[in-house]
């Protein structure tokens, strides 16, 4: 076979799914929300979006690069506190705090990654657990700086260059846009040659090293990037709810995000999104069952892992789907199947 026979790009073969998703998020859902016009539904939608971003960012480090991260919520907290403190102490608005929250979270992640990246498997997991706890304790106990357990009231809502976006629908659109852009970026990372290099580290880091992959550097990058996106989610949360406290970023939140990634499918970005939706919407949908709902949520998680250990949408099918539907152009095709990427 000759490369040139096979390199006919099959562009635009299936832009249908991304188009439908965009229509759903930016037209269908807002129409529904406006139709019901209940603040509670808006809150759920925004919360789900923020957790989609948290789950997607953890997918990059835990699902793709295979580093078990038990302190993700702490970087979410760093982002939220950065936004809240910048906004209350210096009067900065969302437009400025959004990127800064991401950058501060990324900076702290980078600094803690320097010594921890040499650790492997369970040792790395325990190190991230410790980092998460340390950051949480700073939020909780450094009362002069973070106001401790009282939390911080953030009076400034969402805005873009001074133009207020704090109405219900405007807030939804802002959160949806930021989350969609971030998930798109994470998708580009995880479905490209870069994601492949991270996957090779997960599969066999020594072997990846022998293939010329800079394993230490890529692990640092993945960890730092994922903290950046968690920080962005924190800023959204702080400005959206108007009140943050350390409880929002405790260990159990890290575990919740981890559960989303695992239930959805380790290594699968669509899976991470589905997992986040499931674990946010299910408890809300089961409110009618009162105290039993948490047991039912646990049961759903348990059964999904038991019956679908690779996740609701596993990595292999997710990659095929993403490369066919989102990857735009294929270099090579065999028997009508796309192989490779743009």
């Amino acid at each position, binding site marked *: 076979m000759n490369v040139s026979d096979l390199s006919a790009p099959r562009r635009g073969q299936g832009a249908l799914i991304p188009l439908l998703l965009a229509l759903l998020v930016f037209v269908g859902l807002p129409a529904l929300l406006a139709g019901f016009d209940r603040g509670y539904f808006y809150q759920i939608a925004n919360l789900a979006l923020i957790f989609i971003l948290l789950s997607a960012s953890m997918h990059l480090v835990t699902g793709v690069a295979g580093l078990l991260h038990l302190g993700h919520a702490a970087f979410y907290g760093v982002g939220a506190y950065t936004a809240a403190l910048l906004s209350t102490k210096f009067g900065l608005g969302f437009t400025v705090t959004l990127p800064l929250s991401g950058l501060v979270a990324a900076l702290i992640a980078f600094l803690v990654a320097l010594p921890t990246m040499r650790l492997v498997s369970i040792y790395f997991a325990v190190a991230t657990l410790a980092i998460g706890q340390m950051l949480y304790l700073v939020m909780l106990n450094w009362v002069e700086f973070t106001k401790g357990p009282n939390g911080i009231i953030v009076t400034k809502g969402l805005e873009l260059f001074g133009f207020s976006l704090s109405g219900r629908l405007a807030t939804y659109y802002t959160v949806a846009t930021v989350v969609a852009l971030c998930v798109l970026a994470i998708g580009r990372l995880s479905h490209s040659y870069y994601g492949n290099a991270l996957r090779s580290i997960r599969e066999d880091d020594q072997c990846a*090293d*022998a293939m010329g992959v800079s394993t230490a550097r890529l692990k640092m990058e993945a960890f730092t990037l994922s903290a950046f996106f968690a920080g962005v989610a924190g800023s959204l949360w702080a400005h959206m709810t108007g009140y943050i406290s350390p409880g929002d970023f405790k260990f159990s939140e890290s575990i919740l995000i981890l559960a989303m990634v695992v239930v959805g499918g380790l290594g699968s970005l669509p899976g991470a999104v589905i997992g986040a939706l499931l674990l946010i919407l299910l408890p809300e949908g089961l409110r009618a069952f009162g105290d039993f709902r948490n047991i039912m949520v646990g049961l759903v998680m348990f059964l999904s892992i038991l019956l679908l250990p690779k996740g609701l949408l596993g990595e292999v099918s997710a990659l095929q789907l993403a490369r066919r539907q989102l990857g735009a152009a294929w270099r090579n095709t065999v028997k009508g199947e796309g192989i490779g990427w743009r």
Partner: protein
Amino acid sequence: MTHLLDIRNVSRRFGGVLAVNDVTGHVDEGELVGLIGPNGAGKTTLFNLISGFTPLSSGTVAFDGKTISGLKTNQVARLGISRTFQNLRVFPNMSVFDNVSVGAVGALPQGALGALFGSLAGGGARSAEISRRTWEALEAVGLTHVAGELAANLPYGQRKYLEIARALAMQPRFLILDEPAAGLNDTETRALADFIKRLHGTGLTIMLVEHDMTLVMSICQRILVLASGRKIADGPPDAIRRDPAVLEAYLGVDA
């Protein structure tokens, strides 16, 4: 003339064991060299010393006139030294195409920006280049028809070729094959020998690490023999076959 690979007085000690003891040797551009020796002779250790997997206790290794001892494994790889593994180490949960592409990714700049911003940061061209190199390597070993399969689903023989393809996707100057014939039957070994000869025919410098003599004797131009960590012979196959030290090491007879 400088040798492509120049090994000088290399030793490696593991606790009280001297696994590689003062070995000196070289490989020239375009050669197909065999490295043989009985089990435990230090072949794989020497090989790991070259590729930076294991640090040297003493001595130097130079590649293309440049000292590479002390470099990290991935830095050595990016200089153009590529390898396969004795105990197959494919990435099981990745497709065949993705496995091979890792070799191409490793040989090129790897930053996140290219992937994130695509053509704006040179990522588009790099992606295309990786796809091209991957496909060429798959064609070279004849695995294009299973490119979309998970590596874990391939039979043993094909996984061997998958490893070679992954190493080739790096477009190396020097390829080290660690016991490629292990676990293959006679027919498969002959096919492998032909394949290695064809690869060598493209101008690639190859070092073949084997403890089985037959394959090495049939295709290599020159053979280095290790026994108990020391180099005991270095020469063309015919001379090695008659070398008393080699016979002693392999058969234990007093020659």
